[in-house]
């Protein structure tokens, strides 16, 4: 299914033919094929994987998108969609025999309807721009990935992006009402509606998080929520990471659903503090940021409950943001955690496993053990409220040995996440990065079901092939075709 070993050499004749066919309906500026023009598209946010695409297409309207899809379909050329290119799993890694379809020109906000509380936007619109435009109406778009100033809504739909507020307000799938776009053959699609549901199968939910492999999206309708009148954040220090992990579970067990609940360990707070001076307690083994939002009365009540739970859970020190400026300052360190950690080391490798919250302590101990085993440092930042971990392994890509140790380190952590009942990716996607671990998380029958879903939309496997869903042959090669007693699905059952 178009999932063979990718071609690494660009065929110059083929490139000329494809570019010429695309230029029949696209302006010359929208079809790039000289290497100096296509090189900038060689990778997304996962820079460890790079490949120069055969051709880059930058369509400017729906008709041009259809032309690209028609042309590629009829010539049998694979298409890799790309949003802002901030993805962290290589979902937009190009193909040397493929067209990279950039949606960067689709930047218009088509409609904001404050009464119906929705916005209709093109996929290239930045996540944060939606909230900026909705702000005059007292509304905002809730999912807020840390990269929200740069990432686009189309990419968010492809990856089902989360953010620091998704425990209370949901992921992309909970906040998108409708998508419009095309199949790889160029047939128009519309999933969802401006009503709260649509007839038939929930193809909207299926499309969100499908990593650009089922359909090409050209329009997204998102839900807007009223901006909470007040938000305050408690910053709590702990002298032990496991105590901090237990405190997270204690907050939820208390019946509190905080607007955000994040955790950073000492290595991460140290880096962030040096970078943005957020006022973190760098002496603490870990800090928690726990946010409450709502009316002033609600927030006051909830903050008191949160402080009480955290004190009982062993917090050594607590501070509550006094005003909006201080709240944003507390968050600034968390939001800047990745670039801050980036200053500690030439390269870092970000993981994205999600685990049941109650196993947090155990997984943290495991990661600490891996640091010793592989001789690599690994600061941790977590969306603790959802059990979504972002351990960042620090390494130097110029050292082949360090890169190899990093990959083995990461693989062990992801497999640990599966073992405790979690998943290899909470919000960054599988892409090319975690495709081998898919063979561990899913059994051959389930992978076959995914491939069948893909075939339903794209029978020839031309839309973003080779991502997210491994072939059985690839899994066999990976050597993980184990009897599924260790896998999460049906451990109590023998194979049929």
């Amino acid at each position, binding site marked *: 299914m178009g999932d063979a070993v990718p071609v690494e050499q660009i065929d110059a004749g083929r490139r000329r033919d494809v570019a010429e066919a695309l230029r029949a309906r696209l302006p010359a500026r929208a079809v790039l094929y000289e290497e100096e023009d296509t090189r900038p598209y060689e990778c997304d946010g996962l820079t460890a994987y790079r490949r120069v695409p055969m051709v880059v297409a930058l369509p400017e309207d729906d008709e041009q998108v259809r032309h690209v899809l028609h042309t590629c379909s009829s010539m049998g050329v694979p298409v890799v969609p790309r949003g802002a290119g901030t993805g962290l799993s290589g979902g937009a890694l190009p193909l040397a025999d493929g067209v990279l379809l950039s949606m960067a020109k689709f930047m218009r906000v088509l409609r904001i309807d404050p009464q*119906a509380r929705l916005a209709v936007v093109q996929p290239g619109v930045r996540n944060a721009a939606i909230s900026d435009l909705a702000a005059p109406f007292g509304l905002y778009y809730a999912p807020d990935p840390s990269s929200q100033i740069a990432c686009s809504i189309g990419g968010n739909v492809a990856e089902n992006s989360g953010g620091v507020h998704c425990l209370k307000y949901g992921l992309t799938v909970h906040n998108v009402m409708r998508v419009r776009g095309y199949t790889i053959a160029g047939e128009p699609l519309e999933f969802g509606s401006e009503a709260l549901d*649509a007839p038939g199968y929930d193809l909207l939910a299926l499309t969100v998080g*499908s990593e650009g492999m089922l359909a090409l999206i050209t329009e997204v309708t998102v839900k807007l929520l009223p901006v909470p009148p007040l938000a305050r954040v408690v910053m709590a220090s702990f002298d032990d990471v496991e105590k901090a992990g237990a405190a997270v579970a204690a907050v939820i067990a208390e019946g509190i659903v905080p607007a955000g609940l994040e955790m950073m360990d000492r290595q991460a707070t140290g880096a962030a503090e040096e970078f943005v001076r957020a006022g973190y307690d760098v002496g603490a083994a870990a800090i928690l940021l726990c946010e409450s939002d709502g009316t002033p009365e609600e927030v006051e009540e909830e903050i008191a409950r949160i402080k009480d739970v955290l004190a009982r859970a062993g917090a050594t020190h607590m501070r509550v943001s006094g005003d909006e400026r201080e709240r944003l300052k507390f968050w600034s360190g968390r939001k800047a955690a990745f670039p801050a950690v980036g200053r500690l080391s030439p390269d870092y490798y970000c993981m994205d496993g999600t685990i049941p919250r109650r196993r947090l302590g155990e997984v943290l101990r495991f990661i600490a053990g891996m640091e010793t085993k592989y001789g690599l440092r690994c600061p941790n930042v977590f969306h603790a409220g959802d059990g979504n971990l972002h351990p960042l392994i620090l390494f130097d890509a110029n050292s082949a040995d360090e890169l190899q140790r990093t990959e083995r380190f990461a693989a062990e952590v992801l497999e640990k996440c599966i073992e405790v*009942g979690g998943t290899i990716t909470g919000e960054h996607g599988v892409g090319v990065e975690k495709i081998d671990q898919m063979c561990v998380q899913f059994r051959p029958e*389930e992978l076959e079901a995914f491939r069948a879903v893909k075939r339903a939309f794209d029978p020839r496997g031309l839309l973003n092939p080779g991502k997210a869903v491994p072939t059985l042959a690839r899994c066999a090669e990976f050597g993980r075709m184990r009897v599924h007693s260790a896998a999460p*699905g049906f451990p109590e059952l023998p194979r049929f």
Partner: protein
Amino acid sequence: MDAVLQGLAERVRAAAQSGQPLRLHGGGTKDFYGNAPAGEPFDTRAYAGIVSHEASELVVTARCGTPLAELEQALVEANQMLPFEPPHFGAGATLGGCVAAGLSGPRRASAGALRDFVLGARLLDGRGRLLSFGGQVMKNVAGYDVSRLVAGSLGTLGVILEVSLKVLPRPATEASLRLEAAEGQALEWMNRWAGRPLPVSATSFSDGVLCVRLSGAPAAVRAARESLGGAELPRAAEYWTALREHSHPAFAGDRPLWRLSVPSTTPPLGLPGTQLIEWGGALRWLASDAEPGVVRDATRRAGGHATLFRARDKSCGAFAPLSAVSARLHRELKAAFDPAGIFNRGRLYPDL
């Protein structure tokens, strides 16, 4: 291996081989929903029980045959709830039927729909294979979201064996108000309130009366009550249950009952019959003898879709027709999970 599960899987494999259509059912409380059920009855109730409920994880996992009432009771004991407030439509309602029907109750507009709370599902597909998708964690983007796809699929893609759902703490306080208003005014208020940070958890409008339920922290509920005005709604808990279960008088009678799902700001539709509005204007129940084409056209023009929910004659099709591309995708997906076409044939659309 679980003998019950083994039995179910063997029966599916035999049916697939012989091409025997199966009519999946639990308590049969939603037999009225969708197109007429057909095929040999396939009872899922023996595969029952809560598998795990870890309160601090906000997740419950249970088997398809688990009575919905039992599941909800277990959650109440942990001071939690199914946030989408699913209708039971009878004492025998099971979790499997609840997820297969995909219906949500009064809290839907504020909390989200059933599909929003599905974290994982285990299925028996049309080849009798056991498949597991999603999981028990809040965030999971590994693989396509098949567990949400089966929510509301009316059992046409497979036997939903087990489901993991996100649950939420029960609100600390609830208060319900009633206000008198004309339909247009009520629609405007409901939409305006939804755009403000108010703890509105349910709304309804019928016969010139707008009811609103507030849920949340005592301080927030108190403040909202003062700001919205109106009078206290008597026997409020019973009222919202009656609405959810369609025992409210608006649902009585023999006329065909339509479920109109429309954008919440849609002006009064002006269709003949008796109407009850929920979900801040986005759900309009219509008991009417109007021609199906008239109801469907008006709803489609408003940007929504009309389901013939309860009716003796559903020859016009229970669900609004799909576009040609969407219909083809439905057939392809059906064939992917149920190649012999044995599960709940015709229940959703005639060719599925």
